[in-house]
């Protein structure tokens, strides 16, 4: 692929509720991506209620962003990880349910959207991707 390596899809301090899903800037130039390992981590996790991060991918900058992995957290520090692979089969595109993955669709860009409820204190979220 063009640009294998480790990327950060999101890193931020979490405080007030993110009521409107907040898209982070995309990681681009990932043509030929065959596999991505994702690690989402919520540090702290006190005071809030729920925190959700959805990783999306699309083909080219004009394509539609499709959900490929979803991580859900509550009120405790936690770490989740998954691997998404591209393969020669048809992926059924749909919004993901909690803590789920859509295999077989990897485009040329990755981004993530965040949403939360409740007000977290001293909480940090990071979502890393290792692309190959």
């Amino acid at each position, binding site marked *: 692929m063009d*640009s294998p*390596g*480790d*990327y*950060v*899809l*999101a*890193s*931020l*301090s979490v405080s007030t509720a993110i009521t409107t899903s*907040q*898209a*982070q*800037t*995309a*990681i*681009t*130039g990932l043509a030929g991506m065959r596999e991505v390992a994702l690690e989402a*981590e919520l*540090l*702290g996790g006190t005071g809030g209620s729920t925190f959700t991060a959805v990783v999306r991918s699309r083909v080219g900058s004009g394509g539609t962003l499709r959900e490929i992995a979803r991580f859900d957290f509550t009120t405790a*520090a936690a770490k989740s990880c998954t691997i998404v692979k591209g393969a020669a089969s048809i992926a059924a595109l749909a919004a993901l349910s909690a803590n789920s993955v859509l295999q077989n669709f990897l485009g040329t860009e990755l*981004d*993530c959207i965040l949403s939360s409820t409740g007000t977290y204190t*001293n*909480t*940090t979220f*990071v*979502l890393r991707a290792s692309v190959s």
Partner: protein
Amino acid sequence: MAHPAIAALDSALAQAGEDFILRRVIGSAPNQVNIDVTCRARIDAMTEKDLAAGIPATDLNIIMSPTQINDAQWPGGTTPALPPFNVDQRIPRAGGVDKVLIRGQPPRAVVFVDPKIVGGELVRINMRVSG
């Protein structure tokens, strides 16, 4: 294709530079995460002129190329902001958010940044670090 100024700087740094880690620190202790990128730079002690101006002798001047930052798309995905708050996230920030790790020493804080933007493209970053 890289801007000629970047290509020239990369060539010079390949011969006369050294690697260091540029780090953005997100969050408050103990719930912090570090977003690191290894960059190539020329790192020098203060000049006599700098010292005469009152800059501590323990500070260091860094001349770095944006190439490694661009390749790593550092610091990664961020929440986009509307103008005039849509600052270029690639440019290191003074004031404690960004640090550098040089020659195995403890992190030093970025205290001054002078990015060079030519024709709308970030081609070089001069900065001073302290600590």
